[in-house]
């Protein structure tokens, strides 16, 4: 069962890379300026040299050979060159990845800490007013576009990671609150409490292990949410990360760069979701 799950996820990853690679190669081929080398305009070059340059590119005119060589380069880590920034895509991604990573880690940490704390207290206290306040707060945040949260974070001079956290928080809070409420209402929890077990022991020994697979799955989804929110947050907060790079690439219609970023981000999302799913499956396996 677990082996099948892992095989399924690996297949999805390989399919994504292949489809993404083909799409990226197609866009590179269709992009304006393909098959043109500005070196040909150099007046110092003789006709023979210009011909040699054209011959060197002739293999790319064959569509199958072009795709093969593109995929070969991709496998070796060569993601091509950005049209608008005239830099290798790999270099651009390597330069900007730390900013995005930091933003996502802090944003997710804030969102999860706040959401779990509030959800846990709402599930434990069972006060109508407290629950209503949490629902109202999360409901209001759900109605705000990520771009507006980013603008407000600039206005109030707070870090962009808080905007990411506020995008993720309401989704995590609502799901976690429902999960915890259901879990606390289970007969074996009521029985454990009746037997006099402490609240901490009930939480860590009985409640959390039961909902761990669902929380892990939510963890995978929340990474995807945070990555999506990184575009407006980085673009509007002036953070030089991958989200801002994607936005700049979209405005400049730099398709090779944009498609490579999208594939990379999709792979990260798939890895996160697959990892969460496999770990959840392992926990379920141990329990049964």
């Amino acid at each position: 069962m677990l082996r099948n799950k892992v095989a399924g996820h690996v297949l999805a990853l390989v399919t994504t890379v292949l489809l993404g690679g083909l799409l990226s190669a197609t866009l590179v081929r269709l992009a304006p300026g393909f098959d043109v080398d500005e070196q040909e305009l150099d007046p110092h070059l003789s006709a023979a040299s210009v011909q040699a340059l054209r011959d060197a590119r002739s293999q790319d005119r064959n569509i199958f050979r072009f795709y093969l060589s593109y995929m070969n380069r991709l496998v070796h880590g060569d993601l091509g060159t950005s049209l608008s920034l005239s830099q290798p895509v790999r270099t651009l991604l390597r330069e900007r990845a730390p900013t995005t990573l930091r933003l996502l880690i802090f944003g997710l940490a804030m969102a999860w800490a706040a959401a779990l704390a509030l959800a846990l207290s709402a599930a434990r206290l069972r006060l109508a007013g407290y629950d209503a306040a949490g629902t109202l707060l999360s409901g209001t945040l759900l109605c705000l576009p990520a771009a507006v949260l980013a603008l407000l974070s600039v206005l109030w001079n707070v870090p962009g990671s808080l905007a990411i956290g506020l995008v993720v928080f309401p989704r995590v809070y609502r799901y976690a609150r429902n999960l915890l409420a259901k879990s606390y209402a289970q007969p074996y929890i009521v029985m454990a409490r009746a037997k006099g077990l402490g609240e901490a022991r009930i939480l860590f020994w009985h409640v959390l292990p039961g909902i761990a697979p669902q929380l892990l799955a939510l963890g995978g989804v929340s990474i995807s949410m945070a990555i999506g929110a990184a575009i407006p947050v980085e673009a509007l907060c002036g953070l030089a990360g991958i989200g801002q790079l994607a936005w700049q690439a979209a405005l400049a219609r730099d398709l090779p760069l944009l498609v490579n970023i999208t594939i990379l981000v999709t792979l990260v999302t798939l890895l996160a979701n697959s990892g969460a799913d496999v770990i959840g499956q392992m926990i379920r396996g141990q329990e049964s």
Partner: protein
Amino acid sequence: MNLWQKAACAFLLVVVCAAAAANWLAPTGYAKQDREAISAEPSRAHWLGTDELGRDRFARVLYGTRISLFLAPAAALLSTLMAALIGGLSGYLGGIWAKGAMAVTDLFMSLPWLFLLITARALMPLNVSPLFSVVVTFLLLGLLGWSAAARVLCTAAGSLRSSDFVRQARASGVRGARLFWIHVLPNLKPVLFAQFWISIPVFILTEANLGVLGLGVSEPMPSWGSLLRELEGLVSIGEEPWKFASLVLLVLVVMSFQLLLARQEEIAF
């Protein structure tokens, strides 16, 4: 329907009526510039002041509401129809069709929504006419936003396929397209309605994100997204609070949809 849901319904009705009557409520139009009143404060002539080009903000909010509020349901309808076609049909056919559709849906859902949208938007020219930008923005939302709904519909159609009444119909000789159109599709209606309602606030918020990033509806045509770009230059909230009119309206409308959504979900599931 509880009191909050009734209030949400009434509020949405008022907003829809106001947006539909934008021509009468704001006869100056959204693009007319008043050179004498640039970045003006609210007055009797301009209820919400004017923007930096001297355009009446109240008119722009009304016309922007018309575009966002009328086209988001249109995009939701398109995405729901696609979901019904892809998810509903594959779920009904079952076997390899359902597995294939689920695999494609899973792959589609792994693509972060905003990345996918800006990539698709970048494939088209950015310097297009305002009307074309409106069509392109909402068409993309409709064409790319079907995956989550398709997944739900695939599962719902799959469970209907093995239900007693479908077996009975099949035993009576009803098969193929007729069985799908007459017996399966009508029973998917509540799920279809719920998915349609779920998509509307999602598309409104996505258009707002695209608009703020300059990848949505282009000037001079207003939409909630393009109107929110005004907030970019603000120094403090108290300085020009009327600039938040479009944001407040957007939040209230999306909140109303969320409230009504709870009822749709109750009906569907």
